[in-house]
């Protein structure tokens, strides 16, 4: 696995000459010259997966620290033990992370905070084993193929009934789950689902894409199960446990929605029928495409009139606190994006430092071997020894840099995680806004209906006995007013409910974010301190070994 950028320095002859050393110094399984992978995260991650499954023994052979990399072919410079690495008494959270164990080395278990609820609450979801399946179809050509993933859940939550379950789901099912949750949990900060990635699925290598999706699905489901309210939802339970076809109603496609809407339209338009054309409870859902064309038009008109300061509806988003909060959240999101980008640069720079240090060490090992082989004078042998000391230190330091980095990735990943959560917050705020819009629409509709009724009543009172058709119209209007009034009340209740959800969610999230960020900082700093100390020791030793060359006391 030679990175192309290093190929120019490493001609084959040089490689063969030092092949022994290369094999001995198998940093990360021979990956000395670094990955040629694109993202610093990915390459750091693969370092992580190669080196740091904490529960399995380290891949390289342990030997005493002073072993000579040249003369003992099967030995290697001692790597630190993992316990050694997670040192400081401050660092309980990383310990608990280790103990939790990681089967999938790539995605960290939800967020790194220590469990806020009692430690007996436990739900662990794994996504694995992608397989190709075919749609059953009557056509001769056969149906489309698609990928299913095995989703295994282990839990001791009482709601779940069984402690372990395993189902097969396809990506479309995940979309369904996400849509149903969005409907049921308006106002909540629901973790966003993985993208459909239509372009990527065409462009990427199949295997890579499937793996990327598998990872994303796992992260998503773990986040869902970490949410204190959503983890108890029926939708999630059904998704995780019911064998066979996912028994959740699928998002209807646009065509049938259009049809639905078209059928309902005339009724709504003419206010016909005693029963409301639109079931009251549907008021609770935001207007969607085809199904609620008319409602959509009305709400659009309403929002426009809101913006243009038209007729003043009774409820206006005057909640300054909310608007401020929204501003703040946008700003926060921006800064998280920025920090996450800089974190990625930092990770890359640390990675590069480690790699170059390692390459330097190797170059000196080759020099050492060369001088020893060709030595005619003692001064050469001395120099060879000096070089070896330097090289050993460089190789050790290189290893530490890489380990430092894989830890850094884990900690700073918190920033990436919160990007997802910011999207969830925006979703929750959007729910509130659309609920408010519904209320406002109904209010303005109500007020216009009432105005019409008043006009008609005023007109008909002038004619003694009344016009039969006019009276009938008034009756109809009164009926419509009643229905709209009910709908309005439902809408207001819903709006209040969503407002409450928003508030509690944002509060919960603020608290979690605070804790997570603090843990991130602590973990990051402890890590930096620990590895800086280790690296310093390595170099102090080399300085000691070359102390006869200390010229600082002499005059220049």
């Amino acid at each position, binding site marked *: 696995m030679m990175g192309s950028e290093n190929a120019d320095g490493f001609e084959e002859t040089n490689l063969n000459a030092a092949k022994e050393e290369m094999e001995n110094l198998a940093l990360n399984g021979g990956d000395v010259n670094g990955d040629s992978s694109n993202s610093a995260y990915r390459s750091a991650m693969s370092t992580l997966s190669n080196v740091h499954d904490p529960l399995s023994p380290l891949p390289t052979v342990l030997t005493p620290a002073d072993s000579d990399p040249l003369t003992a072919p099967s030995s290697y410079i001692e790597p630190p033990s993992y316990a050694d690495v997670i040192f400081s008494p401050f660092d309980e959270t990383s310990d608990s992370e280790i103990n939790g164990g990681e089967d999938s080395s790539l995605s960290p278990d939800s967020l790194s905070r220590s469990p806020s609820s009692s430690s007996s609450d436990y739900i662990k979801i794994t996504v694995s084993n992608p397989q190709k399946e075919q749609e059953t179809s009557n056509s001769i050509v056969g149906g489309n193929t698609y990928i299913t993933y095995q989703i295994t859940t282990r839990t001791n939550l009482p709601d779940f009934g069984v402690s372990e379950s395993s189902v097969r789901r396809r990506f479309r099912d995940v979309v369904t789950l996400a849509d149903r949750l969005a409907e049921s949990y308006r106002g909540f900060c629901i973790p966003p689902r993985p993208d459909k990635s239509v372009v990527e699925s065409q462009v990427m290598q199949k295997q890579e894409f499937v793996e990327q999706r598998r990872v994303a699905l796992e992260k998503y489901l773990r986040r869902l199960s970490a949410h204190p309210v959503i983890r108890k939802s029926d939708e999630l339970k059904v998704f995780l446990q019911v064998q066979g076809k996912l028994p959740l109603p699928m998002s209807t496609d646009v065509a049938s929605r259009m049809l639905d809407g078209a059928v309902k339209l005339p009724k709504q338009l003419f206010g016909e029928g005693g029963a409301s054309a639109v079931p009251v409870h549907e008021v609770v859902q935001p207007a969607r495409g085809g199904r609620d064309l008319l409602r959509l038009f009305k709400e659009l008109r309403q929002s426009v009139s809101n913006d243009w300061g038209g007729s003043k509806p009774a409820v206006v988003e005057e909640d300054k606190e909310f608007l401020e909060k929204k501003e703040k959240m946008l700003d926060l999101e921006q800064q998280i994006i920025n920090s996450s980008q800089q974190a990625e640069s930092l990770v890359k720079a640390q990675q590069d430092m480690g790699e170059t240090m390692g390459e330097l060490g190797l170059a000196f090992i080759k020099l050492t071997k060369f001088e020893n082989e060709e030595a005619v004078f003692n001064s050469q042998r001395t120099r060879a020894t000096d070089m070896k000391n330097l090289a050993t230190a460089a190789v050790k330091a290189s290893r530490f840099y890489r380990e430092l980095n894989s830890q850094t990735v884990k900690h700073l990943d918190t920033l990436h995680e919160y990007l997802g959560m910011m999207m969830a917050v925006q979703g929750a705020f959007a729910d509130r806004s659309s609920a408010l819009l519904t209320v406002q629409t109904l209010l303005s509709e109500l007020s216009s209906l009432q105005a019409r009724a008043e006009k008609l009543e005023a007109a008909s009172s002038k004619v003694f006995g009344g016009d039969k058709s006019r009276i009938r119209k008034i009756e109809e209007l009164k009926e419509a007013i009643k229905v709209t009034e009910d709908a309005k009340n439902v809408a207001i209740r819903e709006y209040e409910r969503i407002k409450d959800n928003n508030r509690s969610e944002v509060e919960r999230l603020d608290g979690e974010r605070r804790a997570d960020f603090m843990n991130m*900082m602590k973990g990051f700093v402890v890590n*930096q301190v620990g590895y800086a100390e280790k690296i*310093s020791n390595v170099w102090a030793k080399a300085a000691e070994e070359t102390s006869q060359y200390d010229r600082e006391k002499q005059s220049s």
Partner: protein
Amino acid sequence: MQSPRSPSSQPYLSASVTDPVKLGNGVQAYISYRVITKTNLPEYQGPEKIVIRRYSDFVWLRDRLLDKYKGVFVPPLPEKSAVEKFRFSAEFIEMRRAALDIFVNRIASHPELQQSEDLRTFLQADEETMERFRFQETGIFNKKPADFMQMFRDVQSKVSDAVLGKEKPVEETTPEYEKLKHYIFELENHLAEAQKHAYRLVKRHRELGQSLLDFGKAVKLLGACEGEPTGKLFSDLGTKSELVSIKLQKEAQQVLMNFEEPLKDYVRYVQSIKATIAERATAFKQHCELAETTKLKEINLDKLMLTRSDKVGEAEIEYREMKAESEEATIRFERIVKRMNEEIVRFQEQKTEEMGVAFHQFAKGQARLANGIADAWRALLPKLEAASSA
């Protein structure tokens, strides 16, 4: 300052290159240096002398030494660098000054080179004289008569080889010398690689420093969005990050000057040795060919003497001249061999010392850096611990 005549004073000669000053504009711009000589040697004009020199003066000195002291590993000069000249950053200027300083000092402490008349000129001549000298030594127009003879003979020997149909391997092939040549050529490859990685390492320090700086700024902005205590913690984290960044930038410069530059110097030295090897090959070839030609002349002379030809007188003169030249060529060659043998020992010892110093400084610098980084981050721990347990 001891009197030069005092019998107990050791002879000493030291020089230093200081105070670089940029002169001129644009393409014509150059840097001038003060060269300060301190000595008690009688050949010099007094205990201390200060002159102003520029890079091309150093080049002149080196060329003269190469010409007169064949076989000696004349210390290398830093590269001419037509491009960097335009930038003339403070770092570049300082590094060049340091390299020139080392150059002059090496010459002054070399047992043979320190006696060079050209060195005296370089260290003492006023600037106008120096400029005159410098302009003289350019191009083939200044080749001495001996050089022309040499060029002629080179052509001649090639012709005679072709005529005689012999492809004589005119190369030294003693096993020791072969080993040395192989060693030098391989060494250059290895060193070049090490130097390349050392240079990259300097870049990595700078890149890591930059990324920490950017990261620090970013988390400070993030902290501004957050309430307490997170906000303050982010702010502190950002500040520390910026601090660590500065340490890294400083170390980058140290690694460049005290580790990468010595490695580059080592490479230059080896290249200088390769040039000496080429000189030796030329001298060897001359020595062989002249010996050969002399032999032929001798045979010819003997023939003529036997036949009592009247061309004997002429032939005898030719023979004697050729013999003298051949002996000179042999002496030249042997002097190169002797010098090289001594030089190799000096070179190896010198390099062990110089690289040892470089390694030691590098290790110390890295240890210091890592300690500084550990201390900086560690200062945050009490606050972080207090906040997270609250």
